[in-house]
Structures are given as structure tokens and as C-alpha cells.
């Protein structure tokens, strides 16, 4: 799978100075499966907008975006729903967890759509991030950093060709960030998936193919 951007820019950014941006100013940009990208920028430069367009929850942009050879503006809810089940996974900046459900239930909710992982495997993933003791706690009472780790695990319990991670380490310490990043990279290479990571300043992450300055 390849995302191809043809002079795509979200409408709200048109009024902004985007000079020097490697995404908004590029005549054509490819984001390919199997590669890792970090999109770096300060707040308000359109990191989340970029991921939202790729995930089909924002449609207000200029220019064209192609997924393989299809223009994504022609996709209906049916296509997007199918893509989100099997091709695209996302870690939202706002996490989008259900506060009333436990961590495990939040993960299972997603896993049940495709039954991609066994319960044991989910517990293993949680253990890898040090979240096993919190699996039966309601997501609403966890710290934001812990919630981020739940959201990361939830994003990994489905098949995908691209993982879109929106500032998913923002509230984690260095050690946890490293563990989570390692897990994400491992899962991505297992699926030969592409990774698009937005970040304020994660400069020292290994294994990144391309850095894009917004």
C-alpha cells in the first residue's frame, strides 16, 4: 500500500505560513508500506490533520490523496470502515478510550472486530509495556501515560498495513517510550506495515527511514 499526496493541504492551513514544509509544500509525497516516518513539527502545524486525512475522518483539504491508485475522496463509509478494520490502525492523540470500560475491555472491544489476537497474546503485550497489573482497572482512572499505553496496545490488536501514531509517547518517560516504540516497530515489521509517527521532538528514535518537517 502506498499513500500518494498531490499538493494536499488541509484548508485551515492555507492561511498559515507553510514555507519550508516538506509535506505541505512538496509537489508529490509518497508514504510507503514497510517504511517508518516521523513527522516533526511544533504544535499547530497540522500533524494531527495529516493523520486524520489518511484515516478518513477529515475531508476538508485541497489537492488529492491517493491510496494505491484510488483517490480517497471517492471512498464511502463502507470502504473506510473496512480499511479501519484491516488496513489502517491509529493511536489517537486524544486516545479515544472508553473511560467506563477496563483497560482490557477497551482492548478487547477492538480485538473483537477481527479476533486478531488471543487473550493470552494481549496479556503478553500488556506485560511488555508494564500494563498487566492495570488490565482490570477502568481506563478512566489511569494516568494519561498509562492510558497512552492502553491505546497503543489497542492499536496493535488488528491487522494493518499502516500504523498512524499521533504523539503517542507524549506522557511517557524515556524508558517506557523506548519499550513502547520497540514494541510498535516489532509489530510493524511483523506485518510489513508502514509507520507514521508524529512527534514534537522525538529525535533519537532508531530505525526511522524518513523524517519529514512540517
Amino acid at each position, binding site marked *: 500500500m502506498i499513500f500518494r499526496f498531490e499538493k494536499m493541504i488541509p484548508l485551515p492551513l492555507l492561511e498559515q505560513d507553510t514555507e519550508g514544509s516538506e509535506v505541505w509544500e512538496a509537489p508529490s509525497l509518497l508514504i510507503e508500506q514497510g517504511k517508518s516516518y516521523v513527522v516533526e513539527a511544533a504544535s499547530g502545524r497540522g500533524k494531527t490533520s495529516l493523520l486524520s486525512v489518511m484515516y478518513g475522518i477529515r475531508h476538508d483539504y485541497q489537492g488529492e490523496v491517493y491510496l494505491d491508485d484510488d483517490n480517497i475522496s471517492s471512498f464511502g463509509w463502507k470502504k473506510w470502515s473496512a480499511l479501519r478494520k484491516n488496513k489502517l490502525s491509529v493511536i489517537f492523540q486524544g486516545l479515544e478510550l472508553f473511560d467506563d470500560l477496563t483497560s482490557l475491555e477497551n482492548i478487547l472491544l*477492538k480485538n473483537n472486530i477481527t479476533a486478531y489476537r488471543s487473550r493470552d497474546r494481549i496479556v503478553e503485550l500488556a506485560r511488555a509495556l508494564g500494563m498487566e497489573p492495570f488490565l482490570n482497572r477502568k481506563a478512566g482512572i489511569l494516568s494519561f501515560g498509562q492510558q497512552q499505553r492502553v491505546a497503543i496496545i489497542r492499536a496493535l490488536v488488528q491487522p494493518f498495513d499502516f500504523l498512524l501514531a499521533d504523539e503517542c509517547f507524549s506522557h511517557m518517560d524515556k524508558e517506557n517510550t523506548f519499550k513502547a516504540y520497540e514494541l510498535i516497530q516489532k509489530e510493524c515489521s511483523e506485518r510489513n506495515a508502514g509507520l507514521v509517527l508524529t512527534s514534537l521532538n522525538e529525535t533519537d528514535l532508531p530505525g526511522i527511514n524518513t523524517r519529514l518537517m512540517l
Partner: protein
Amino acid sequence: MRLIYQILWKDHSRTHLLGAFLGTLAGFVLLLAGIQFYIDIKSVLAENRDLLDPEYIVINKKVNIGQTLGLGRSGFTEDEIKELSEQAFADQVEPFLSNEFPVSGYTENERFPDFYTELFFEAIPDEFIDVKSDEWVWDPELGNIPVIIPQDYLNLYNFGFAPSQGLPQIPKGVLSMINFKLRLRGKYGFDDYNGQIVGFSNRIHSILVPLDFLTWANEKYGYFDKSNPSQLIVVSKDPTDPSIIRFLEEKGYDTIREKLKSSRMNIILKLIISFLVVVAAIIIGLAFLVFLLSLQLMISRSSDKIKKLNKLGFHYREISRPYILLLLVLMIAVTGLSLLVTSLLANKFHGMTLEWSLNTSSSLHGILFGISLGLVALISLANITAILISTKKLCK
């Protein structure tokens, strides 16, 4: 999928749903019970032949002073009969046949005082007469003329005339046993026949003889000018039709209003049932609205969650499923409960009417199942559509 139900059901309003549920239940019970009892009462009335059988209406022209002075004829012309028979309410119109020769009756019996009177005869086909008697036959060989007189004549005598004159009252059976002579006078002579009262009519206020007799007698003795029939009998399947009264008034015809009043029972019954149905429809309509609004409220309360689920890749149809399931469970409960309550009511009603020696059904009429299923299907369909529309709106 248990989790998505858990998430979305959390936002229901128990009081709204309970109110909608009870309202729908009440509406259903009212509607079903109304229909059940309507069918019951209708069948009870059908046994009671006077009320729902076709009504026989005897029509005559109003008598005015012109006729008294001999200036006008009170009979119906052929055109008028034709016009009447073309009316929608008139299933059958039959003119009365009158005698075209003088008739008189007298008694020749030692046990009764001598009695003599001039008479008239009228005849209509047997099917219009409410008295069925084996003796109601004309056999020229025997020369016996059966006669039917109005019940009211006998009442007039028994309860009016006889007590005031110190005369004995006469029961029906005795009157039927009295033989009297009928003298039919032709242009060139007369013949005497035996007459016998074979019955008393509640429907027709006239002295009736069999039609084949009168046709025969008019042929044999008649010499009057043929006159137009002065009375018509009209058969109407629906005597409750208000156009009957309208037509009669417009034309200046007259009838015994009491006859039409007897159908009032039917009108009142229909009125009560239609009132009940309207009330039930309003209640069901309102309850349906409350259902619709509670589900919509539930959806809008959950709109954030629905958006989240959509972002996680849930199809809007999967998201609607918990709402639809909830709706269907409630709807099935409404149908089941309303049928149960109605059948309990029917049972109770059956017990009550037994005491009045009326026979109503103790079980539900089949049509009720059809009606309730149809209604529930309709309500569910409309709600499901609304659910799908509003969840789809929240999904991108």
C-alpha cells in the same frame, strides 16, 4: 460484541423507555380489546335478527290537505319507484299491491257477537314479511284466505278498546282460531271465502294477504281503475346510512321513524368503537413518538461514544444494533403483554356476558394477532429507520 452493548446501553433513560413502553402497551390493549369486543358484540347482535339484518322500511307519501280534498294522488309513480330503487341504500324496492275490488269481512259464529266491516288488502312478496307460517298459502281449491294483521291492531284492541268497553281481551292464539267470512265483490256478483288470521306483523302496518291470492283476485273481481301503489317496502342492508333519512326528507316521503331508530344501537356501537379506535390510535401515536424520541435521545447522549466506535472501525450498522435490539425486545414485550392482557379481559368479559346469556368469545379473534403484529412491525420499522439514519449521521 457484548462490550458495544454495554457501552451504548449505559446511556438509556429508564423512565423515558418505561413511559413509552407503558403508553404503547395501553394503546395496544385499548385497540385490541376494542376490536375484540366489537367483533363479539357484532356477532351477538347478528343472532338478534332485528338489529343487524337488512332493515325493511315501509315508505309512503305524506298526506296533505290536497289529497283530502281529492285533488292529488298519494301513490308512487313508476318514475318515483325507479328513482328510489337507484339510491345506493336501497337494495330492493317493492310496491304494495292493493285490492281493486270491494272487500268486506263478517263473522258467523254463535260464540262471538256478529261483526261486519269493510276491509282492504295489500300484498307484497313473502320474503318481505316477518311472519313465517305454514298456513300462509293460497289454494284456490280450498278457498281459505290467510291474513296477517299488524301486531299493533291487536294491541290497540286488547289494551285500548277492550278494557274501555268492558269487552274481553283476546290472546293471539284465540284470534287465530276465529273463522270469519270474507266477501269479495266483483262487478257482476260476489263470493264468500273463509278467512283466517295466521300471524301478526311487527314490520308492516297493513292487512296482508298472499301475493298470488291478490293477483288472482284482482284478475277475477277487479274493476277499479289501476291506482299507483301507496306504499313501498325498501330493503336496506345498512339502515344506519344517513342518506336514507336525507332522501326521505328531500322527497317528502314518510316512514315509521321508530324503524330506523332500532338501528341506532348499531350506530352507537360503531361510534363507541370508532371513538375507542381513535383514542387508541392517538395513544399509540404518542407512545410511538416517545419511543422514537427516547431512542434518539439515547443516541445523542452517546454521540461521543458512537463517534469513537466509528473511529475504531465499527460500521454504523454494528453501532445501531444495540438500539435495534433494545427496540425489538420492547416491541415483542408490548405485543406479548398486550395480547395477554386482552385475552384476560376477553375471558373476564366472556364470564360476565354468560350471566346475561350472551355468548361472546373467550379466546382472542385471529385478526388481533395480525393487527398487533402489523402495528409492531410498522412501529419497529419506522424506529429502526430513524436509528440507522441518526447513527449514520454521526459516523464518517
